[in-house]
């Protein structure tokens, strides 16, 4: 059983600077053969501008395409926007690295490794 509230949440990093938290939601969590991958990147706008968040989204999409993931959709929200709209709770999103560890999802592990190298 996933515990999304008490475990540390993951970061996408630019160099040594954590820039945001990445969560997964949608059909990837429930379907054995999902058609697409839905992610939400919650960025800290003290260290990550909206433009930087767009770059992270682009990196995830490009890395995903290289890895053969057909469609990656990334919602971008600042921490303030996320809190205000309660997005994580409303869609039942799960921290991505927790999902990867619990489900030994090597494809998504490679996606994150690639994206962290090249955000």
């Amino acid at each position, binding site marked *: 059983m996933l515990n999304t509230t008490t475990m540390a949440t993951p970061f996408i990093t630019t160099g040594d600077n954590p820039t945001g938290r990445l969560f997964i939601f*949608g059909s990837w969590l429930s379907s054995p053969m999902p058609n*697409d991958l*839905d992610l939400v990147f919650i*960025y800290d706008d003290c260290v990550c501008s*909206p*433009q930087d*968040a*767009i770059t992270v*989204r682009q990196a995830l999409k490009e890395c995903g395409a290289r890895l053969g993931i057909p*469609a990656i*959709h990334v*919602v*971008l*929200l*600042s921490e*303030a*926007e996320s809190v*205000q*709209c*309660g*997005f994580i709770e*409303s*869609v039942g999103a799960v921290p991505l690295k927790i999902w990867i560890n619990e489900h030994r999802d090597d494809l998504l592990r490679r996606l994150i490794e690639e994206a962290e190298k090249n955000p």
Partner: protein
Amino acid sequence: MPNNSGIPSWKSIQFFENAIATHNAVESVTNRGENVFIINRKGHAPVVVYLTDVYTVGIADVIDAMTRIPDLGCVVTISNWNGYTQAAKDHGVQNHVGVFLFAELMGALNRDDFWAYVKHDDDGNPVYHYRG
């Protein structure tokens, strides 16, 4: 259900073009490609619309669209169950870019300052589609 892709389906685009064309203030609609449409209005300036189906339009989406589309007038997320954040809405208004659901766009097209359009309920209270 929302498709979360951010890319409107072919059916959504068809719906958008057909519905906009029936608006009293609209003369014609031109598809400029890549989900950008020019709405030519009667007696008002044209409005350039970026159509999306993103579940929640955030400020980053608005900035991204403004960067890619210099003459942008509106970001419209097509599905009724979609929404936007207050920060996205506010940033848009400050830059004369409307951030709307489709139904709101239909109201906005009657105005010169379309970006500032806000729908009101029967009691006169403003209605926003902030997610959450």
